[in-house]
């Protein structure tokens, strides 16, 4: 379909030769060599810590390689800065957004552009790009009021405004609905057809299969293979990436569930501020051993739901949340943990863990009561260290030990640690939000397995995610959250991807309307 428009005479758009980068104690990139052709969509695959981020940072000029050569359109790139990279036509959408919270969308985009435009002209161009690619974003909103998904849109628009010749995309689709992903892919295919090369980093192998023509696989800083993702299976690519066989999530579809563990009824919260999303009249039941999935696009009340369940936002009615038959709707987060409800919020740094604290101190934060890590107003450092070491061991967290600072761990490893910290407490109900956001396939599989084991042992799991693959693989029952309202929960087998997508987009509950929308969609595609 989108074969690169290239002749043998044309030099590669980007060519890396023997790129090596040494950090204290880690060889991040070891003689990395590969080339991206003009107009090619090229995947960079690898686990967290495989050296992908370091590599793209060097391409984008944030860091300089220790040795090796980079050529762009045949010209050697040296002593580059991000500015120089942009001048050459290299755009980048970061995994961790480089946004300024207190500034507006417009100001954020202006900062990423080197050409000086008046705000009026810039706004006009932004609206042009938004229209062209079917994205919605208000240029005058302050970033701190935006959801994760909207923030990512800023990054994408910022990169597209540069008319890039090489676009680096680091995990760009994690927060989009299937329709939005498809729309983004159309944008990328269109860009590629116009001759722009795309270096696409993702852990979603489906997407790489659907989108990319070539994949370079990194492991431990080295290139371990190159393949055509269209000729590979997801499994074969994942195995190349982690260098070992994958274990499937084996979950018995027909198992029966126990007593209701968590019953939520008429749960509502007020919006935090004028831009926040309130949740309204949420109700669902999760039984022992059951996975309850909540799908939805970022910023539709997921955070409010997590905070209401965890107890961070005070409830108004004790009976709105029943845990094992006991009303807990008015209890504090600590009291809810003691009662048996643990929570993993979406944000790893600063919410689930404190990055300046050691791992053992981080266990004390949420596990002190259930695991007896503190008592009588005093900490039990030895117990905390032991517990942290247990989490590190059982969840194969790559860390120097319980004394390592949380911020020193890669995203996937920290997430494994946080999940382990909660799962090993054996809560009756575990609420998790985005458990595998930005986590590589190996770590994601480990997290999924641990969740399945927890449920098999009789816990109820509430899984709030924007990753549909994850939801479909794990959930027994599924509901979709949109503008703070939850659709009627139904067994996951009764849903089609399209229907979930439509519910995420706000077509609620009414089967007739859903069918009509589906038909309209089909008519469009035909």
């Amino acid at each position: 379909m989108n074969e690169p428009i290239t002749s043998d005479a044309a030099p590669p758009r980007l060519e890396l030769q023997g790129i090596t980068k040494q950090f204290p104690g880690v060889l991040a990139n070891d003689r990395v060599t590969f080339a991206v052709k003009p107009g090619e969509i090229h995947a960079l695959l690898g686990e967290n810590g495989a050296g992908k981020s370091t590599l793209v940072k060097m391409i984008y000029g944030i860091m300089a390689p220790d040795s090796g050569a980079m050529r762009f359109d045949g010209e050697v790139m040296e002593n580059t800065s991000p500015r120089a990279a942009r001048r050459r036509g290299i755009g980048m959408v970061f995994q961790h957004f480089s946004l300024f919270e207190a500034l507006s969308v417009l100001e954020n985009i202006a900062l990423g552009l080197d050409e000086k435009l008046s705000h009026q002209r810039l706004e006009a161009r932004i609206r042009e790009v938004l229209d062209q690619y079917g994205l919605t974003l208000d240029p005058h909103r302050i970033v701190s009021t935006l959801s994760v998904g909207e923030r990512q849109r800023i990054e994408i628009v910022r990169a597209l405004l540069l008319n890039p010749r090489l676009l680096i995309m680091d995990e760009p689709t994690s927060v989009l609905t299937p329709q939005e992903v498809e729309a983004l892919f159309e944008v990328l295919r269109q860009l590629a057809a116009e001759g722009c090369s795309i270096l696409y980093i993702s852990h979603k192998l489906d997407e790489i299969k659907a989108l990319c023509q070539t994949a370079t696989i990194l492991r431990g800083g080295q290139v371990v293979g190159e393949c055509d993702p269209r000729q590979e299976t997801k499994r074969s690519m994942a195995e190349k990436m982690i260098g070992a066989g994958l274990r499937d999530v084996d979950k018995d579809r027909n198992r029966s569930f126990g007593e209701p563990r968590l019953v939520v009824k008429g749960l509502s919260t007020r919006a935090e501020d004028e831009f926040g999303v309130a949740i309204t009249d949420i109700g669902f039941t999760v039984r022992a051993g059951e996975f309850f999935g909540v799908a939805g696009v970022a910023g539709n009340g997921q955070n409010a739901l997590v905070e209401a369940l965890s107890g961070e936002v005070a409830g108004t009615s004790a009976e709105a949340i029943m845990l094992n038959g006991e009303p807990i709707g008015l209890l504090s987060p600590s009291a809810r943990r003691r009662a048996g409800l643990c929570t993993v919020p979406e944000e790893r740094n600063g919410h689930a863990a404190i990055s300046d604290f050691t791992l053992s101190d981080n266990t004390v934060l949420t596990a002190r009561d259930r695991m007896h890590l503190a008592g009588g107003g005093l900490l039990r450092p030895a117990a905390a260290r032991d517990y942290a070491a247990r989490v590190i061991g059982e969840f194969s967290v790559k860390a120097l030990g319980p004394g390592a600072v949380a911020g020193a761990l890669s995203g996937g490893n920290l997430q494994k640690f946080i999940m382990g910290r909660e799962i090993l407490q054996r809560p009756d109900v575990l609420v998790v939000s985005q458990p595998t956001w930005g986590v590589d396939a190996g770590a994601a599989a480990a997290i999924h397995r641990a969740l399945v084991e927890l449920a098999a042992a009789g816990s109820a799991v509430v899984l709030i995610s924007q990753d549909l693959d994850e939801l479909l693989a794990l959930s027994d029952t599924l509901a979709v959250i949109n503008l703070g309202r939850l659709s009627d929960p139904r067994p996951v087998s009764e849903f089609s991807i399209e229907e979930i997508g439509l519910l995420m987009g706000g077509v609620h509950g009414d089967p007739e309307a859903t069918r009509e929308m589906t038909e309209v969609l089909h008519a469009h595609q035909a």
Partner: protein
Amino acid sequence: MSIELTIAIIITLVGASTPILFAALGELVVEKSGVLNLGVEGMMLTGAVVGFAVTFETGSPWLGVVAAAFAGAAASMIFAVVTLTLSANQVATGLALTIFGTGFSALFGKAYTGKPLALFRSVFPPELATHPYLKVIFGYSPLVYFSFIMVVAVWWLLRRTRPGLILRAVGENDLSAHSIGYPVIAVRYAAVAFGGAMAGIGGACFPLVLTPQWVEGLTAGRGWIALALVVFAAWRPYRLLAGAYLFGLVGTMELYAKAAGGPFRILPSELWASMPYLATILVLVLISIRRNSNTSAPACLGKPFVPTS
């Protein structure tokens, strides 16, 4: 209150407010770039003594002001090297700068104690500048008018220009600014130098505009009030202007209360003197109640920037 008294109060008020306004404007720019320089008092004193000396030796208050600006900026560069290049703690370094400025000005100013200086007076014709009523508009030192220009200039710089946007971005998220490719440390050096120059001019106001002689420690804690004022104004130049005059008014009332005259007897002078601080605490409470992210401090304020990669 008679018109004469009102005019006298306004003129005292403007005089008392101008140094605070200069120093606070400078500090606002510094803090917007993410740096907390607590050495304002020290830079003001350095500017004051150098401004006095140069004016005394050359007879030109204009040269004195320029020299004061350079002296303040030079003092601020000590702070900049230690905190920005060597990544030392900004609070401790700022306090040290104040101690340094206090000592330096006392030592250097010793030679000028008791020597008279001509005030930096209005440049308008005497018919306007000393007119019993019109002097309320035309009777001030050029520095007063300059301070108003600087309020507009700083607002315009921060809100309407690209360098201003970059400066705010650096103060908001230094790592992101760095990864986009802006020179975080250079921007902060420039901001700190500007803050030092403004504090120097603010300090020079004391011998050139207020009391035409050298007195040790003549700024009397105005640098601290300027720091409080930046918080009070929620990092906005126009609120800073209003705040400086409010704080100046309180300072004026303190003087009148001390002189045991006028309608300001109702409160003892010590209480008037503490008003700016009470007001700052009150404003901080109000800001946190309103929880408007727009009025909060720059996110990177006081944090050293160490690029990880």
